[in-house]
């Protein structure tokens, strides 16, 4: 690129040097010097300076070619740059790269922790009532998950209190499947230990697919599917 540019600079400089000599012959020789590097058009221009100075003779002929070349180079560079720009965009928006699960350790730990906590809180209650769990649900659930939870508790709330059921839920393993911007999908293995009245505790395994959305500086669960 640099030699091209310097040649452009020199090309412009040459006719001016000719002007400095301030004579008709100097003029012609200046144009002639230009013409050496140029094409057949400069012959017409050369005579033009002598006789008809007003039209089409103003530009040194070699200059036009160089300008065209420079414009071509500029266009090529723009095109090439655009190609790289597009390529980089394609690379960054590729599926594996967009998914920040594990590649962004901090964000991955954060979403897994928030979801684990949320699940433990909304699926843990004592015979005294489900009020605490339902209160938690209002802050950590949203969308479809919130509706499902309300429907579910609307049906079982009274039975749970009557039968004196205690449930405690713990996330055993959590894997972040996908983390893209403010949305995440996770797979959570839960242990749910329940006790009815004074009976023995039984532990059941549950596998949930969870969709979470980052909203208001916290991850909220928007969808839960039992697996």
């Amino acid at each position, binding site marked *: *690129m640099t030699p*091209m*540019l310097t040649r*452009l*600079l020199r*090309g*412009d400089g040459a*006719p*001016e040097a000719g*002007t400095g000599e*301030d*004579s*008709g012959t100097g*003029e012609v020789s*200046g144009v002639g010097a230009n013409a050496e590097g140029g094409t057949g058009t400069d012959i017409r221009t050369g005579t033009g*300076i*002598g006789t008809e*100075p*007003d039209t089409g*003779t*103003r*530009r*040194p002929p070699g*200059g036009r070619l160089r*300008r065209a070349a*420079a*414009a071509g*180079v*500029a*266009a090529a*560079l*723009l095109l*090439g*740059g655009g*190609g*790289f*720009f597009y*390529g*980089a965009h394609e*690379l*960054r928006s590729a*599926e*594996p*790269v967009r998914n920040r*699960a*594990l*590649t962004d350790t901090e964000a991955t730990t954060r979403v897994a922790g928030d979801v684990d906590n949320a699940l433990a809180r909304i699926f843990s209650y004592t015979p005294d009532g489900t009020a605490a769990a339902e209160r938690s649900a209002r802050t950590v659930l949203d969308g479809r998950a919130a509706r499902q939870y309300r429907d579910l508790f609307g049906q079982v709330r009274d039975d749970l209190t009557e039968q004196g059921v205690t449930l405690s839920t713990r996330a*055993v*393993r959590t*894997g*972040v*499947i996908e983390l893209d911007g403010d949305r995440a999908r996770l*797979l959570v*293995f839960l*242990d749910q230990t329940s006790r009815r009245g004074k009976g023995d505790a039984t*532990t059941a*395994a549950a*596998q949930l*697919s969870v969709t979470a959305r980052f909203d208001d500086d916290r991850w909220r669960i928007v969808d839960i599917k039992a*697996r």
Partner: protein
Amino acid sequence: MQHARAGVRAHAVHVLAGHRARPLPALVLVLALVAGGFAVWAGQDWYRAAHDDRAAYAVQRDEALAAGEQAVQNLNTLDHQDLNRGLDLWESSTTGELREQLVSGRADFAEQVKKAKTVTSARVLSGAVTELDDRAGRARVLIALRVTVKASGGAKTEKDSRMLGELTRAGGQWRLSALGQAPVGGAPAG
């Protein structure tokens, strides 16, 4: 006289030409410089994106998960009528200690399945990578699985299981090196 006038005119023209010709090349020059700068920046940006460690890591993560899901499904699929092919697939999906166990127990296991005449198939419901050491070539996965066992009488039973798998990369391929059920009611872990 004539000659001199022509000279003056020519000179004036040239001065004019000099003045008029200069801004255009300057513009072209600036354009070329800007274009060059843009090309260099875009090129570097592309190079960075193409050699991003995180991109390579993300690709390994996805490959490990795909291999893990496939391997866990393979190891929960077996047809008593096509034992050899099924067990070959088990061996090709695994590596290390797990593979050794499968190889050494193959004959006994084949005998059992032949007697029981079961057809086992599995479907991966969901899977996730929980750990990935890109350099060491080691990964851990969670897989939620639905296993269907068809007994000789034709009765079908379905069972959901949650598996923990460990993968090891060997020769550019991720293979299962350990597999077990996630314990229920055990001590808290990971």
